């Protein structure tokens, strides 16, 4: 019997020839879905792993999971994309990005578990998927359009604008399928068309595959958009069990909007939403000054986004919403965020406008300066400046000619990288990615990033171990769960076992326990977050801030998995599959040239100390506290020692960081070991 959750086919697109083939999903089920299947496809279909991001042979895969298109809580809406990305430095690593909305579910309703694209079209094209019918459409009229305009044009072309709210027939036969839903579209904006390394792919309003540099990859393929509309069904092994678990989650671990058990202590204190899981609590700088609704990705039970009366910046509650921090007007703040969506640029890369203004203030950048720029710097802090800045990056004009290569390469070219990354004026500590949470204290994030290939952006520990203590300390309230209890819950539920592994003190961050924590997160997220596509803003649910302190994970994941797929799975097995996928990725990076000597942070991480509090659990004098972590740095030698122990723990050669054959064979990756060996890149000893 076919495994539930999958619809059975992956669409392979050859953009050069404009042909398609079907790949049976069953061939790849051992890689679970999402990222796992995408990495396996990349390994099989890209012969030369050393090609660049813009080489036509680069395979870009957009992949769903068995949970996509179902009401598995906060596990339906996210879609994974992988391929060689153009953003990272110094090597364009094989990488991933992930976006919310409804694209993955719609792929499955159309009968596809995923779409992978290789080759490059000689002219602008968009791929039109209507159930099993796939056509290549001329995108010359779309080329140059903003991403919202692109989607609106495609909706009109396929099934009518969103104002047309009626049943759409996907074929001209009675039983060819119907839907009221508009096509799910993923597209690039002008930045991707201009091969910006910091370009995104955008979907609906406010959903972006932002990091990784995929926008430029699509641009290099002359691929403007993929549109999918489908009317089919996702098979579920045990529907009643799935429904029970969904309702259980909502009853026991969700925010009751009518009668919340735990509510923000002050009205509108939305940061408290991190603990309460209340809707519409995302990252806006300003509270909505106008009527609004919460907005949720497909099948979500939290619904953290917002749709506004103005319609400007719908869904922009994440990083992009903070792009224009100097805004004194809510609508201007959202207009700037929306402009990033429209042109399709990664907010993390262009937050650096504040750093650039600092260069202007120092007389290093500006008209006639060492770094020439005629942007209206004297109007910095106004919307007029933000508009001009954003557009110059998207178009590659003025200073944008350098910034389109990403801030890491731009500052290298200007001769500013060494000095500014050493002082901390420019906080891009790993692979050219912007600092995301304090690398000198919340090390599982920093270590996971440096041993990987991009900002991990995985909030697994972050909500419970960092945010809850920060928010409660800020308002002078006791932590909702004391540090000792928190680390015990996390140690037990994760399976790591030893609570001291979660010690983020100055010594704890180099411990063998932290090796295990770092490795565990790599394995857990590769399976549950990036392959089964459970949203990291909701999962894992180890902790509950209402009645009992314990959340529903990991038992509920097992229940959801077997309800949807019909297959049993233990927690240990799931972590092992994640480890398999992580090691497959590691092997790809090794084939791309990875060596332990590259895995170092920017100088400021070692040579400057923290000034702001970054609460994490710490053992101080034998007592568990949520320490502030002020005055901290990473010690170079201690980190190098940690690195060797991490490699040994993962079963990699400690001198190179290359996986050992025994490790890969244990993970059923013998063919991967063979390929590494063929290139002389197999790890020699632990």
């Amino acid at each position, binding site marked *: 019997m076919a495994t539930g959750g999958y619809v059975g086919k992956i669409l392979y697109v050859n953009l050069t020839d404009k042909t398609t083939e079907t790949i049976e999903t069953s061939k790849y089920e051992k890689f679970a879905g999402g990222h796992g299947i995408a990495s396996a496809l990349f390994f099989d279909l890209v012969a030369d792993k050393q090609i660049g991001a813009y080489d036509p042979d680069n395979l870009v895969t957009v992949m769903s999971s068995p949970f996509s*298109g179902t*009401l598995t809580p906060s596990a*339906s809406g996210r879609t994974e994309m992988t391929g060689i990305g153009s953003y990272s430095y110094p090597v364009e690593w094989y990488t991933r990005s992930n976006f919310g909305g409804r694209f993955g579910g719609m792929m499955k*309703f159309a009968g596809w578990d995923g779409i992978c694209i290789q080759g490059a079209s000689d002219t602008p094209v968009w791929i039109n998927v209507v159930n099993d019918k796939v056509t290549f459409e001329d995108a010359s009229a779309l080329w140059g359009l903003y991403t919202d305009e692109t*989607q609106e044009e495609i909706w009109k072309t396929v099934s009518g604008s*969103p*104002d047309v*709210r*009626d*049943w759409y027939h996907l074929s001209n036969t*009675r*039983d*060819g*399928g119907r839907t*009221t*839903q*508009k096509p799910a579209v993923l597209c690039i904006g002008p930045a991707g068309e201009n091969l910006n390394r910091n370009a995104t792919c955008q979907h609906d*309003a*406010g959903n972006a595959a932002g990091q990784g540099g995929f926008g430029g990859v699509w641009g290099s393929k002359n691929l403007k958009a993929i549109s999918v509309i489908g*009317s*089919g*069904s*996702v*098979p*579920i092994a045990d*529907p*009643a069990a799935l*429904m*029970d678990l*969904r*309702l259980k989650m*909502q009853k026991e671990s969700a925010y*009751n*909007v*009518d*009668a*919340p058990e735990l*509510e923000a202590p002050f*009205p*509108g204190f*939305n940061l408290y939403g991190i603990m309460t899981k*209340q*809707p*519409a609590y995302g990252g806006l700088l300003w509270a*909505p000054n106008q*009527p*609004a*609704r*919460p907005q*949720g990705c*497909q*099948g*979500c039970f939290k*619904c953290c986004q917002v*749709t*506004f009366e*103005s*319609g400007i910046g*719908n*869904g922009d509650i994440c990083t992009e919403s903070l792009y224009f921090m100097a805004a004194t007007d809510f609508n201007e703040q959202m207009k700037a965020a929306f402009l990033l969506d429209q042109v399709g640029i990664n907010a993390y890369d262009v937050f650096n406008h504040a750093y650039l203004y600092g260069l202007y203030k120092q007389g290093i950048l500006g008209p006639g300066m060492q770094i020439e720029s005629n942007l209206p710097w004297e109007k910095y802090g106004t919307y007029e400046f933000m508009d001009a800045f954003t557009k110059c990056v998207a178009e590659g004009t003025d200073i944008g000619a350098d910034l389109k290569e990403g801030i890491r390469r731009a500052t290298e070219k200007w001769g500013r990288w060494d000095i500014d990354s050493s002082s901390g004026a420019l906080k891009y500590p790993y692979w050219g990615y912007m600092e995301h949470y304090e690398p000198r204290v919340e090390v599982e994030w920093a270590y996971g990033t440096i041993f990987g290939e991009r900002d991990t952006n995985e909030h697994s520990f972050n909500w419970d171990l960092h945010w809850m203590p920060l928010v409660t300390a800020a308002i002078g309230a006791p932590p909702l769960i004391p540090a000792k209890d928190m680390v015990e819950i996390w140690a037990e539920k994760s399976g790591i076992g030893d609570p001291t592994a979660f010690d983020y003190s100055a010594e704890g961050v180099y411990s063998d326990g932290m090796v295990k924590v770092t490795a565990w997160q790599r394995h857990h997220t590769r399976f549950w977050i990036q392959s089964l596509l459970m949203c990291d803003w909701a999962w894992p649910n180890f902790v509950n801030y209402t009645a009992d302190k314990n959340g529903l994970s990991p038992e509920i994941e097992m229940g959801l998995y077997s309800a949807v797929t019909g297959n049993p799975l233990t927690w240990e097995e799931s972590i092992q599959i994640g480890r398999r996928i992580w090691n497959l990725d590691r092997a790809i990076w090794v084939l791309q040239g990875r060596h332990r000597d590259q895995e170092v942070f920017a100088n400021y991480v070692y040579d400057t100390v923290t000034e702001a509090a970054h609460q994490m659990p710490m053992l101080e004098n034998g007592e568990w506290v949520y320490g502030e972590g002020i005055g901290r740095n990473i010690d170079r030698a201690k980190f190098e020692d940690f690195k060797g122990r991490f490699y040994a723990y993962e079963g990699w050669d400690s001198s190179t960081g290359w996986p050992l054959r025994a490790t890969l064979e244990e993970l059923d990756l013998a063919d991967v070991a063979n390929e590494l060996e063929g290139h002389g890149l197999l790890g020699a000893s632990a």
Partner: protein
Amino acid sequence: MRPMADEAKTVSRREFLTGIGGAGMGAVIGGLAVNALWVDDRVFAVEASGGYLLVDTMKCAGCETCMLACSLVHLGRSNPSLSRIQMVKNPFGQFPSDTDQVQCRQCPYPSCVDACPVGAMHVDPANAFVRRVDAAKCIGCERCVNACPFTPSRVQWNFEDRTAQKCDLCADAPYWNEDGGPAGKQACVESCPMKAITFTTAIPMQNDAGYDVNLRNAHWATLALPTD
């Protein structure tokens, strides 16, 4: 009570059927507990439904959970196209017109029931007169789909099982461990994470645009969201 009797004497049956298809009758008798409608015997007469779904359109988060739940509990598979409640949205739209929630209004005068030539679409006395399809009798003519006075039609053509279907208030939801139907629970009501859908036995106040529903209380205001 005979609210429409005088009108029935002076308008044609066709005009009457069109005029009261959904809004007219509801606007007149919404909120009243009326079990049966007295009308001239030239006009089709049915019992009013004992249950209605109310959706607060301002509270909806557009997450599609209702659609995913509906198809799951009725058919055992996940497919918004086969959901008996629909939510449509424009991601770039302006609140509150950015989304519509499209549920069956269990019309006091059900055009769909009247249109069915074989009695497959019927009023079910065993389930508080909910309007529903007996799939075994359905001949696939789709007259019910076309007869619904609302756009999109609240009757779906189930193109996989080849039968018409519509909201039965979960009277027949075999893939759920709860008792459904007007006397039980509805999957969309239970699964909506915003609690934007509720069930009522009284005919709602309504107009062509929909029901007049506000399910938001003071806790909604603490989220910096509107309650009016």
